[in-house]
């Protein structure tokens, strides 16, 4: 069987044309609107309550749509966005250091290694400033300077300070702002909240997204919910690797089920490995913990110059340390983008210079910062991160350098959407990390929070009107329709199938094996031979899963193993598509490093003549070859050059 086939029709992102700084304004002026009286008659389902979902649900409810909002956590406030640490970018130029919308746009396109759409990224940069204003008005307690004005710091891949933050808990504070805005709408009756509910299928009627099938995770009951449009804000799929910095329950099911119903999946192999995480300590490890990128503002990364140096890090003199990022990339030093920093750490460890018990770690050292700024200043800036580190490792980072290693962190790939954030299924919108849109092949730090809130507060509320304007006469969606019947039946059959295996192997064990396979062959660096091998292993593991998975209990109760089993079943299918995508993209760009395509000094080698496109995959059936649809990327403002941080 052929691995995949290629569609000869080009996919159209429906981006506006004209001067880039006018595109969004003109687009907003030209799309259709829905009057307040008609909004009242329209129902919208939002799945997800992270930054993207909570902001979208709140903003849509404020506009007067009837919103139903879903999350699988017991409260919307617990969505994975809560864990974001470092900050959120915005082109405010409050620091007077030469920042501008154009520069944020340029940095993001370049940081993404020229694999994102210019129009989308420009819009993102353009609305970034409004996000900060909105959050401040909601009471988000951003860090401030003594004069009372907002403080900024800098993040990797840029040379200005444009990152707003609230200690190491920026995601928490932004999410609580959006959550509170959402709960205000729930209180007003304009939004209805379905916590502890998991979407298990999308319902498509006459080619349009018209509802979802959700399982009440407390009672186990399946429910049908109809709406005129469905918005997925269901986050990323990094947990396909089992070990990642994502929360344990993050998964791809909502997006994957939509993919199976016709939504194309964009650039699934673009995953981000974050350079600074606490290393794996044992085979019982259940997740990895990020140490925010902001630490690279003041921390210095190094390994000993001597292999297997037995000395404690504090005993190794300055001239016997290799500050390899500063050495290789003098212009950006410790603040090179994530993909570059991760690969450099892997290179040093693979070459035998790694530190710590596993030798798969490098040092992140604050001793210079403490000398320069004083311990109190370091504590004020990073105190809570240091505490987290100490709780986990039992080592004091004020006294000895942290040990860090790269870990899976974020997925740039996701459901393909057009400029309006609509997927290839009319009426199905995708926001936040769940879509593929703005970060190309590598996301810059502090840009995911920006994108989630941009999508939810400032983009979707406009663009969804353009679609719903056609629906103002549509009646309420009838959930007795045969499409609901069919979807509910297929969900039930799948649950019964999972429960009927009654095997011996716990879900976690199989998930861990899948994750290891992906990490080894579709992780920080990839090659054709390994990817082909991975495809075989994935098939074998999937067979084993359906033959021997142990799912105890019933479907009529709170059953975590059943939840996990359904998610892992979908991860197998996604893993296959990721490997196919990685195999087909015969170039290195951003987080996708194909060993066959590198420069002499080991940097990524992009092949713009062949691969300057978005790969959007169409589902054709389980283990059937998917169809590749290409959306060409055109660069009018940021001319692709070799990304250099030297």
């Amino acid at each position, binding site marked *: 069987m052929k691995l995949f086939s290629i569609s000869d029709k080009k996919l159209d992102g429906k981006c506006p044309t004209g001067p880039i700084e006018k595109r969004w304004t003109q687009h907003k002026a030209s799309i259709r609107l829905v009057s307040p009286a008609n909004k009242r008659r329209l129902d919208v389902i939002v799945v997800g309550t992270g930054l993207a979902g909570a902001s979208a649900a709140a903003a849509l409810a404020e506009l007067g749509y009837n919103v139903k909002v879903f999350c699988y956590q017991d409260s919307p406030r617990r969505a994975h966005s809560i864990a974001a640490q470092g900050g959120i970018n915005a082109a405010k130029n409050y620091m007077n250091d030469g920042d501008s919308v154009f520069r944020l746009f340029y940095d993001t396109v370049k940081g993404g290694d020229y694999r994102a759409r210019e129009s989308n990224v420009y819009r993102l940069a353009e609305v970034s400033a409004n996000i900060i204003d909105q959050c401040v008005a909601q009471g988000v307690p951003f860090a401030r300077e003594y004069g009372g004005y907002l403080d900024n710091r800098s993040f990797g891949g840029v040379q200005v300070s444009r990152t707003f933050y609230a200690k190491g808990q920026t995601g928490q504070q932004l999410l609580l702002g959006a959550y509170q805005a959402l709960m205000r709408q729930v209180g007003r009756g304009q939004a209805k909240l379905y916590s502890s509910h998991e979407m298990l299928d999308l319902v498509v009627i006459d080619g349009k997204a018209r509802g979802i099938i959700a399982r009440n995770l407390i009672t186990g009951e399946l429910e049908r919910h109809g709406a005129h449009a469905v918005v997925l804000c269901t986050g990323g799929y990094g947990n396909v690797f089992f070990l990642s910095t994502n929360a344990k329950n993050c998964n791809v099911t909502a997006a994957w089920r939509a993919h199976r119903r016709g939504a194309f999946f964009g650039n699934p192999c673009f995953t981000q490995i974050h350079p600074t995480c606490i290393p794996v300590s044992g085979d019982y490890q259940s997740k990895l913990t990020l140490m925010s990128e902001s630490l690279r503002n003041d921390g210095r990364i190094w390994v000993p110059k001597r292999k297997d140096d037995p000395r404690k890090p504090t005993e190794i003199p300055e001239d016997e340390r290799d500050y390899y990022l500063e050495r290789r990339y003098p212009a950006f030093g410790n603040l090179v983008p994530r993909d570059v920093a991760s690969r450099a750490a892997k290179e040093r460890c693979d070459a035998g210079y790694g530190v710590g018990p596993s030798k798969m770690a490098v040092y992140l050292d604050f001793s210079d910062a403490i000398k320069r700024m004083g311990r109190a200043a370091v504590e004020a800036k990073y105190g809570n991160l240091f505490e987290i580190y100490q709780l986990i490792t039992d080592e004091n980072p004020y006294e000895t350098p942290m040990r860090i290693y790269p870990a899976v962190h974020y997925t740039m790939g996701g459901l393909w959407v057009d400029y309006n954030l609509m997927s290839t299924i009319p009426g199905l919108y995708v926001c936040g990390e769940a879509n593929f849109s703005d970060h190309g092949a590598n996301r810059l730090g502090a840009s995911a929070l920006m994108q989630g809130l941009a999508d939810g507060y400032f983009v979707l509320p406009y663009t969804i009107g353009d679609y719903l304007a056609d629906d103002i006469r549509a009646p309420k969606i009838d959930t007795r329709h045969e499409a609901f019947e069919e979807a509910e039946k297929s969900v039930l059959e799948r649950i019964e199938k999972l429960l009927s295996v009654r095997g011996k192997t716990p879900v976690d064990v199989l998930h861990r094996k899948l994750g290891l396979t992906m990490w080894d062959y579709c992780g920080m660096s990839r090659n054709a031979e390994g990817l082909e091998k991975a495809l075989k292993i994935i098939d074998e593991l999937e067979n084993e899963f359906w033959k021997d998975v142990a799912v*105890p209990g019933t479907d009529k109760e709170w059953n975590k193993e059943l939840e996990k089993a359904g998610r892992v079943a979908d991860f197998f299918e996604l893993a296959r598509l990721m490997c196919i995508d990685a195999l087909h993209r015969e170039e290195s760009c951003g987080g996708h490093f194909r060993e066959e395509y590198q420069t002499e000094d080991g940097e990524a080698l992009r092949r713009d003549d062949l691969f300057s496109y978005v790969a959007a995959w169409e589902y054709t059936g389980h283990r059937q070859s998917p169809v590749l649809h290409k959306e060409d990327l055109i660069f009018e403002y940021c001319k692709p050059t070799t990304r250099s941080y030297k």
Partner: protein
Amino acid sequence: MKVYLKVWRQRHARDAGRFVDYTVDGINPDMSFLEMLDVLNNRLISQGEDPIAFDHDCREGICGTCGLYINGRPHGPVARATTCQVHMRHFKDGETIVIEPWRADAFPVIKDLVVDRSAFDRIIQAGGFVSVNTGQAPDGNAIPIPKEDASKAFDAATCIGCGACVAACKNASAMLFVAAKVAHLARLPQGRIEARERVLNMLTQMEEEGFGGCTNTGACEAECPKAISLENIALLNREFIKAKCAL
């Protein structure tokens, strides 16, 4: 290491529930407490037994999902840490560990160690927000806020909504949780405008949900993983008096 567990098992809300004993060995002291439970659960699953239901998500102390009552303390023996941040190195080899769910009328048990905390959402819904619609905001630097106020607001806003304060309190009061939100917003100019309605509405909702009153025992502050200070309750009381006087 080896530990002996006494775990509260309860099939559903109406089940009476009971303690069940388990022995777990081969523990690495660097394992987290929840990883130790993972190991036990995977063993139970392989033997065809029902695993222990407990909830968790971020496993790094920020989402507020986890919450176990360990040896009589919410979130266990480590100060300023959530259950998922407790490691086995904090227990002795051979120790007996008693694990229970949060106990409070307003937090009914769903299964084993999982409780329903949706009451907290309804308290926020009653007033824990600033009424500003998307797009209405002025420039973020239009109103300077003294650093001191901003950081105090931040400290209160770090509450993760875990419910340990309720579990620690003999009255099962949610006062620290409510005070954290009231204080966060009252300390900022954006939140002042609605301060009066907020405190009254949130307290009314707290009572309706069946949480007890506050008698200032301070148990909540001692067990709060985010060190939310009793100062916030004092501020809530001042806000409450102001609001009452204005009525």
